[in-house]
């Protein structure tokens, strides 16, 4: 054999390789197996390889002894550097680079050679390549040599080339990254990064050799590449720190190196198994992100506005399109601002992208903003809705639970928790008074439940505009209406919240307010009034019974005359007005009921009323009490006026202007529905109605009822004047009687009609029956 002089480096390298190939530990290497792989990795044409093997004498021997192996390696180096293969060149060529084996190892080496022309290369190479022998040695070596933390045991998998390869793979990326970023200095926190860098690196360096272990860590794990690129991202080139590390690491003992290799392989194994979540943010990264966040926004629970975030991320030199996409992914609630979680996710994505990882289409689970993060999570959702609301009224999810990733991306927000929860249960609502109350109660109950006002549910309202507005209006009702049953108030308040809610929603169609108003039409007048929902349950008997008893002082009970029975109502709306006059004599509750029946018959029968005559008697008195009557609803005065000059007042008021009469009526004086001649009464009362169009539901009823109520409390005071009181009560009773009589007759009439119908139907049935039998 030709003598072969190798430099120290070469010597070491070759011996390592030899040991690597020498699996059988027989000091000679067969020409198959590892050697073949190694030589193929040299990426030389096979003829050259043949030539090399021939030259080194292996063909003669049939196997590679150590020297042949060395020669072969040298020849490979020569061939790779482009020199012709000649035995003489073995010793003559100086400064030959080490043979490059492509399968990871030499790629690494080649790149390192390119990147680190300084003496560190040697260290690096020697650092890296001893790994295989190191591994081999550790197989034999006891575990006690493995002193570094994190390296639990000797390599489990020494023989496979992949572990050897993989660490080599990743390091190229890191040095590349370092190199790249070294040339991209940008403003940022100089202080922080070296600190962080050193924080990150020392552990890894201590574990094993700096780059080696770092590589090992990076092998399967995305975070290390992210770390080093992240470190370099905004500022101080980390490579400034790294070279410092390298010499130190190189200076470490070879035992550490060998152990390092074991460590790296171990780590490689571990990381490859941990690869399933490449988007996971490690703690150091998170801490770093948080620190960065603080530089922009000292309050960790606050937001980074979009413009600030834009500037910050633009420093990363990523294309705007990608930054835009990153923003889309990370701005979870679409509010144009980044919370801490969102910021961390965005930053992580930027770092990943810089390292060559493609951006995902959807935000990975581990990056989703969580409710529970570093700081108080409770506060985080709350500002979010507020901010969100102000920025985009419809599109924010205050709740950032990871359970609704995709949904929240699209969906509108709702503002306060009350509203949210109310809309969480969009209840189809019909605007009937009783149902409104029921739903108010329900919403009040659900209002205490602050679970996820999830976005899809909140999504519904904007789509179902009317339904949406109804629940929201109902919710507002529930807020506004403390006592649920003052339905007259609630009803009117219905109108207001609805329109107010409409303006708050992002109304895509201008028609919505109108639609809403259409949705909540005033209930038909004949319907029993919501304000008297309770009274609607009162039956007429009770009201009638109360009527006659109204004469007595304790009439307060029947404060609400029962609602008018539906049947007569639709027919005559004006009739109550007329009958108001008829039954007016300070009638209390009785009037309420009596009015409707009066309606039908009153036009004809009013002239028959005995009271009619009375009115004329008191004509004289009208002038005095009229003034009083028109004032406030003073019970005594009203009552007096009622008794003595009630009718007169009514008559008088007829003569007076309509406004006055309306004022009188509006003030709910019992005197108003006194018994003037029906026509004037009707006219006046009609004018009342015209003047009070807004009282949709039952203007007349409320008038009557109000007047009746007004008069009722005045009754006790009239006791003082017994005679007049008795007269009044007599009148009232007579009135009631007549009313009842009329009602009776009317009902009888209806009964007759129904019976006739029934008979006719039965006849028809019988006619048809013979046919059916046939």
């Amino acid at each position: 054999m030709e003598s072969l002089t190798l430099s120290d480096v070469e010597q070491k390298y070759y011996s390592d390789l030899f040991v690597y190939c020498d699996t059988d530990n027989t000091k000679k290497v067969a020409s198959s197996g590892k050697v073949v792989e190694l030589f193929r990795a040299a990426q030389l044409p096979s003829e050259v390889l043949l030539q090399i093997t021939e030259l080194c004498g292996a063909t003669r021997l049939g196997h590679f002894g150590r020297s042949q192996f060395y020669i072969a390696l040298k020849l490979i180096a020569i061939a790779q550097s482009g020199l012709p293969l000649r035995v003489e060149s073995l010793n003559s060529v100086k400064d030959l680079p080490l043979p490059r084996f492509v399968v990871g190892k030499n790629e690494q080496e080649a790149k390192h050679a390119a990147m680190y022309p300084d003496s560190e290369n040697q260290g690096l190479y020697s650092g890296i390549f001893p790994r295989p022998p190191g591994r081999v040695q550790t197989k034999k070596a006891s575990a006690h040599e493995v002193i570094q933390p994190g390296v639990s045991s000797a390599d489990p998998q020494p023989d496979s080339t992949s572990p050897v390869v993989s660490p080599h793979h990743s390091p190229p990326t890191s040095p590349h990254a370092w190199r790249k970023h070294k040339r991209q200095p940008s403003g940022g926190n100089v202080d922080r990064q070296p600190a962080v860098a050193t924080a990150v690196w020392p552990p890894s360096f201590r574990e094993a050799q700096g780059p080696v272990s770092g590589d090992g860590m990076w092998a399967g794990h995305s975070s290390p590449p992210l770390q080093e690129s992240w470190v370099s991202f905004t500022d101080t080139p980390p490579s400034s720190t790294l070279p410092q590390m390298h010499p130190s690491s190189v200076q470490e003992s070879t035992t550490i190196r060998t152990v390092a290799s074991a460590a790296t392989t171990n780590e490689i194994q571990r990381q490859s198994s941990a690869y399933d979540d490449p988007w996971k943010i490690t703690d150091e990264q998170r801490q770093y992100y948080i620190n960065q966040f603080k530089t922009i926004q000292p309050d960790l629970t606050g937001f980074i506005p979009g413009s600030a975030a834009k500037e910050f991320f633009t420093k990363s030199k990523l294309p705007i399109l990608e930054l835009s996409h990153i923003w889309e992914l990370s701005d979870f609630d679409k509010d144009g601002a980044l919370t801490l979680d969102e910021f961390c996710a965005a930053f992580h994505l930027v770092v990943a992208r810089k390292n060559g990882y493609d951006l995902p289409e959807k935000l990975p689970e581990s990056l989703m903003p969580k409710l529970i993060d570093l700081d108080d999570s409770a506060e985080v959702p709350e500002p979010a809705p507020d901010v969100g609301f102000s920025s985009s009224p419809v599109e924010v999810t205050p709740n950032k639970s990871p359970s609704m990733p995709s949904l929240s991306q699209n969906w509108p927000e709702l503002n306060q928790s009350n509203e949210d929860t109310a809309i969480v249960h969009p209840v189809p609502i019909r605007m009937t008074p009783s149902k409104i109350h029921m739903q108010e109660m329900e919403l009040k109950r659900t209002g205490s439940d602050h679970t996820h006002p999830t976005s899809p549910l909140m999504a519904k309202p904007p789509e179902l505009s009317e339904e949406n507005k109804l629940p929201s209006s109902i919710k507002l009702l529930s807020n506004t209406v403390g006592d649920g049953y003052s339905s007259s108030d609630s009803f009117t308040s219905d109108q207001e919240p609805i329109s107010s809610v409409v303006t708050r929603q992002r109304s895509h169609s201008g028609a919505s307010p109108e639609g809403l108003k259409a949705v909540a039409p005033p209930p038909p007048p004949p319907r029993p009034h919501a304000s008297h929902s309770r009274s609607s349950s009162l039956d007429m008997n009770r009201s009638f019974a109360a009527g006659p008893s109204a004469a007595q002082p304790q009439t307060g009970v029947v404060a609400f005359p029962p609602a008018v029975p539906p049947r007569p109502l639709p027919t005559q709306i004006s009739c109550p007005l007329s009958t108001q006059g008829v039954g007016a004599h300070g009638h209390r509750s009785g009037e309420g009921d009596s009015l409707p029946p009066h309606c039908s018959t009153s036009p004809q029968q009013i002239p028959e009323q005995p009271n009619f005559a009375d009115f004329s008697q008191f004509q004289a008195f009208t002038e005095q009490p009229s003034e009083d009557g028109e004032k406030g609803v003073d019970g005594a005065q009203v009552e007096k006026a009622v008794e003595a000059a009630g009718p007169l007042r009514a008559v008088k008021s007829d003569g007076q202007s309509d406004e006055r009469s309306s004022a009188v009526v509006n003030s709910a004086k019992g005197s108003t529905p006194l018994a003037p001649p029906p026509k004037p009464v009707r006219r006046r009362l009609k004018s009342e109605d015209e003047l009070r169009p807004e009282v949709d539901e039952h203007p007349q009823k409320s008038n009557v009822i109000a007047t009746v109520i007004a008069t009722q409390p005045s009754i006790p005071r009239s006791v003082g004047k017994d005679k007049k009181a008795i007269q009044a009560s007599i009148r009232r009773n007579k009135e009631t009687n007549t009313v009842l009589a009329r009602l009776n007759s009317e009902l009888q009439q209806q009964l007759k009609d129904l019976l006739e119908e029934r008979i006719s139907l039965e006849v028809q049935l019988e006619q048809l029956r013979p046919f059916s039998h046939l």
Partner: protein
Amino acid sequence: MAVCVAVIAKENYPLYIRSVPTQNELKFHYTVHTSLDVVEEKVSAVGKALADQRELYLGLLYPTEDYKVYGYVTNSKVKFVIVVDSSNTSLRDNEIRSMFRKLHNSFTDVMCNPFYNPGDAIQSRAFDSVVSGMMVQAC
């Protein structure tokens, strides 16, 4: 299902236009362009009424024998135009409205992105996916 979706800026240049690729896209581009006249007409028809009085959804702009064109304008005068195939079982008005609503929401999301400069072409993937969702699934 739409055959073509377009977003036109206030100055009447397209921010985003996408058609079902099987058909002659130029035809749709031209249709959208001509529909802008109708949009202007409808918008100005309101006259002195304020913007919020004006309905955002403009409805059917004009039908041709092949397809119908619907319009929608936002308060910032950005117009959305959807072209649907007439042969399609006539879509209900509600469906068209919901499509516009989705477009509007998605457009707002794009606007919220600080990296988007108003007036740029819309290149958001989320927006694309929303539009794809409402295009005719021909391919």
